[in-house]
Structure formats: C-alpha cells, structure tokens
C-alpha cells in the first residue's frame, strides 16, 4: 500500500511517500516525479519519513530521473528515510548518487545554498 502526496511550495515541491513501494505501484512514484518536473519545479524533495519499504522497482524510478535532474538543473533530495530503507540505498551505493539527508531542515539548507 502506497500513498503519495504532492505539495508545491513557492521554492520547492515535496513528494511525501507513505507505505511501501514495490513493483505493483512504482508507476505511481514515477508519475509523481514526472508531475513535479513538468510543473517546472527546480527543487524536488522526497519526504521519506513514512516510507516503510522500497524494492528495486522504486529505486529504479529514482535512478531513471538522475540524468534528467542534472540536465534540467533540478535539485533532488530525499530526506527522513528510516534505517531499514536507507540501508537498501546503501547496499547498491545509490547513496553516492542520490542526495539523502536526515530531515527537512537539512534538505531545505541544500536548496537555499544552491
């Protein structure tokens, strides 16, 4: 079960993930990121505080946008992942490719520094 909430603030869009991302629902995550990009957001934050699980289907969605983010100068930051979920990013070294921070404050600091 996955719930996705998307809020567009003036400076950034926050995508909040609640539940579990797997092969059955990763298209929803894909659509949310697509949507945030199309809305012209230059800063996309993913709130992972309530993300309980992620499989490769979800990781693959993030990975597939990394080049687009770079080309369009979009800051993409994931924050608040629990230890279990963060470990999954770490196993593949994705924490070297995607910006993962502890909380919203740290995520916003990155945006405002940039």
């Amino acid at each position, binding site marked *: *079960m996955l719930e996705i909430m998307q809020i567009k603030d003036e400076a950034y869009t926050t995508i909040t993930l609640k539940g*579990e991302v*797997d*092969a*059955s629902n*990763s298209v929803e995550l*894909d659509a949310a990121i697509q949507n945030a990009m199309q809305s012209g957001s230059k800063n996309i934050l993913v709130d992972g505080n309530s993300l309980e*699980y992620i*499989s*490769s*289907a979800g*990781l*693959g*969605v993030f*990975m*597939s*946008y*990394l*080049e*687009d983010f770079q080309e369009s100068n979009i800051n993409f930051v994931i924050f608040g992942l629990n*230890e*279990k979920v963060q*470990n*999954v990013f770490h*196993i*593949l*070294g*994705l924490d070297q*490719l995607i910006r993962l921070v502890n909380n919203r404050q740290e995520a916003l600091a990155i945006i405002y520094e940039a």
Partner: protein
Amino acid sequence: MRHELDLSCEKSRLADLRLFLSEVLNPIGISEIAKNQMILAVEEVCANLIIHSHGCNPNDRIHLRVHLDDNKIIFEIADSGLAFNLLEYKAPDLAEVVRKKKKGGLGIMLVRKIMDKIEFENNNDKNICRLVKRLNYK
C-alpha cells in the same frame, strides 16, 4: 523448521509475500535491517518471475519454501515454465542504469549483494532458485 507459501503471479501479491516472510523471520531474532534485506532479496526474485517469466498471469503460481537452520536460512523459489536463470543474467553497472534510464536490473544486483549463495536448478519443466543466507550472529 519449514514454511511454505503458494503465490499467484500477480504483482499485488508481493505485499502478501512480505508479510509471510516477516512472520517466518520474526522469531529468529535478527536485526530489522537483516530481516528487511532477506525479504527484499526474495521479493526481487519473485517479482522477476512474476513479471518476466509469467507475464503477470494470475493462473500461474510460484511456490516458496523457507528452511530455517541453526546457522543458515534457505529460501527455495520454485516455478514452472520459461526458466530465468539469474546466475546467467549479466547485471548492468550503475552508470549504465543511469545512462540508459533503465528501470530494471537493480533487483538482481540486490539479490547478489544480500545473499551468500545463489543456486539454480532446472528439471524438466520445473525451475528452482535457491537463496542461502548464513546467520553469523552466534
């Protein structure tokens, strides 16, 4: 101890698979991270079979057996039909995944990193993928 689950080939059943594995692994006293890793690896193999070998056909089934030993856990994933041998599958590297904007390929990488041994058997029409995880917390 042996536990078994029969799973129909639908992506929506992956959540049931996780629940089953969680209940099987709960009593053995491993960390939440280790437990999550094992659940993930088994799910990745099953998701591959469901999507690629069985085209999400709900009439097809996967049979999972979990053997809990003192020092290791063996997950046996059996299906029939088109064999998918993940030992022969050449996983892409991360740079390739990013460059080609591929959404697949990461699952097999995860399984290889998490499990200690992966075996594959093919008898007539039956395929068995065996994942072994050693427990070294004692």
